């Protein structure tokens, strides 16, 4: 388990290092490996990457999640802008509860961030497996229905990726 | 380019004035930090990226954080 976390941390760090430097020279690689080894110790100590799955199915889920996410982001912006430019501000806000099945910390972070960036919803707090969400145009305050409307489209991909 | 420079200068001055005039301490500190951030854009236009980076990281970033750490110590006596 620790081995997988170390591999992911090293790979991620090296990728970012090369992107920052913008070259693939020998010197850049040497310094990059030194720095990345130091940073991966922080990652292993915190255990963030312990639950990431590295299967082909996870890769497909990652791509699907990114596509869903981008579509929702554009939709959310069209929604928000139409609210902003209309002469009378029409909103119907509420703070609702939803449940999530995700257990891993990274998965919950990804879920909360994608909820925040999608139409009219904003994660205000998270307690155990309950997320409190500020909804700008609340159509329901029921837990199950809100979960179905807000969470599930991301959760089914993130579940494969993070478990 | 001059027009950008003038607009950002005006923004910096407005932020500095806000920092000096406003009554609330927290807002004053925040506005001071924002003035530093705008000043760093001025430094970029004046072809000084080194100084811009230092101003963003040290002059406006860390200084603001240290202000808040000090304010925290003052508050903790105020009300428990």
């Amino acid at each position, binding site marked *: 388990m620790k081995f997988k976390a170390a591999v992911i941390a090293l790979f991620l760090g090296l990728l970012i290092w090369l992107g920052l430097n913008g070259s693939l020279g020998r010197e850049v690689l040497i310094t990059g490996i030194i720095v990345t080894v130091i940073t991966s110790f922080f990652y292993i100590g915190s255990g963030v990457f312990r639950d990431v799955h590295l299967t082909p199915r996870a890769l497909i889920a990652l791509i699907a999640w990114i596509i869903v996410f981008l579509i929702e982001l554009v939709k959310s912006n069209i929604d928000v802008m139409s609210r902003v430019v209309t002469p009378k501000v029409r909103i119907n806000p509420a703070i609702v509860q939803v449940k999530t099945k995700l257990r891993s910390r990274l998965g919950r972070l990804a879920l909360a961030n994608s909820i925040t960036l999608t139409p009219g919803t904003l994660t205000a707090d998270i307690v155990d497996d309950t997320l409190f969400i500020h909804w700008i145009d609340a159509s329901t305050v029921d837990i199950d229905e809100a979960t179905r409307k807000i969470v599930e489209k991301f959760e089914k991909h993130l579940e494969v990726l993070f478990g | 380019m001059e027009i950008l420079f003038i607009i950002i200068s005006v923004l910096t001055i407005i932020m500095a004035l806000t920092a000096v005039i406003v009554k609330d301490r927290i807002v004053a*500190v925040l506005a001071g930090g924002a003035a530093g951030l705008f000043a760093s854009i001025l430094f970029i236009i004046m072809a000084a990226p080194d100084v811009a980076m230092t101003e963003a990281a040290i002059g406006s970033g860390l200084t603001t954080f240290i202000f808040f750490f000090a304010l925290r110590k003052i508050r903790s006596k105020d009300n428990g």
Partner: protein
Amino acid sequence: MISTIAVSTGSLLVLIGLWGALTNRDIIRMIVGFSIFDVGIHIIMISIGYISGGTAPIISSLSEVGASFVDPVPQALVLTAIVIGLGITAFMLTYAVNMYNKKGTLEIDKFEELKW
């Protein structure tokens, strides 16, 4: 042109910062005034080193040396000044916290020992 505008901005910031530091009675806001004063001085110093149409003094190849660069020396000085400004601010703030712990207030008028 740019450096003239910058000098005026810097001077205004110096005046605003000085005004804030002298007229405010609250120590924290006096320190904010000082840091704005600092920013103004930095802008003035950088604009003294500006050359019309100059680019940043970071050379991408040795053949480029003849091009017009801005003056690097004021930039190095300002870099030093910003770092030392952080040290001074941290020092002033710790001092203010200490004074608050002694007297329980941050109003400068309450500190009788410091007045002439």
